[in-house]
């Protein structure tokens, strides 16, 4: 295998997404009423922290197939922006507003960034560093 020692991006990304899923389920379980936000905010904070840690660890990798990483990341982002846009449309259609909409949108942003990052990392880790 042409793999060098890499940070646990997949594990951290999966954990970040698990926090997003937990926060969204908690909020959705209360819809159409507004849920108390403390639990969702805690989930959002943990998910954002893990994503930031992931990005920081990945940026410190000395040799990595960044050309392939950004190629997959670009297309993945495009695809998941469409998915995220549809989900945001659903929130607005269901008249979600105020702080609840802000928290859900932030979680959506984390989801839209996390999935392409995991796809791009998994593909790029097995690619040649030089193009």
């Amino acid at each position: 295998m042409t793999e060098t020692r890499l940070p646990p991006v997949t594990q951290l990304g999966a954990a970040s997404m698990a926090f997003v899923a937990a926060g969204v389920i908690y909020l959705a379980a209360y819809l159409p009423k507004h849920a108390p936000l403390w639990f969702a905010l805690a989930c959002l904070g943990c998910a954002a922290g893990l994503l930031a840690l992931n990005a920081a660890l990945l940026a410190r990798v000395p040799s990595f197939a960044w050309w392939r990483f950004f190629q997959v990341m670009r297309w993945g982002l495009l695809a998941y922006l469409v998915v995220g846009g549809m989900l945001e449309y659903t929130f607005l259609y269901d008249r979600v507003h105020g702080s609840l909409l802000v928290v859900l949108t932030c979680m959506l942003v984390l989801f839209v960034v996390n999935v392409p990052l995991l796809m791009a990392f998994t593909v790029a880790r097995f690619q040649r560093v030089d193009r």
Partner: protein
Amino acid sequence: MSVASAVAVPAEARPQAPVVAVRALPLVAIVLAGLVVAIAGNWPWALTFYHVVGGALWTSIDLFVGFVVGPILRSMPVPARVEFTRRLMPRMLVIMPTVVTMTLGAGFQLARQSGHLATSDPRHAWVVASMCVVGVMAVVALALLSPANLAVVFELRKPQPDPAVVGALMRRFVYAAGVTGAMQVATFVIMTRLAS
């Protein structure tokens, strides 16, 4: 034939497979446009259609891949396994996100319409349980299964694919499909409970 010799077919001898089944994308666009219209119109029949058809396909494909295709794939000769994977993965990258979006989008709207989402509804707990099952499946599928799927496609596009990489990624793909397949059994219990 060894794994190494099986995947080391010269690049010019092997037609370059697309990463995603591009020809299917217009069909995906039509299906998703229909879903948006169904939600916007809030038509019970259209929402039920999208939810039931999407859910049936999602569950069947998960179970079929996890418990039927996976074990068969492991017992196949390596060249056949590589060729099958090279053709299957681009299609899976289009099919799975589409059926998942159909099921969840229409399902959430149906739950709202039927009142099951309201915390006072006696079946609310079942809806929340289904959300938890979907949450686990989403994390497994999006963090493990889908990236492995994509990485296999990229690996098999190389002039000299690394058999160890393909093997490791396919193991991850088949195990993740098995986990989501098992979670689908929980979905059966919840959905039949909700519908009865």
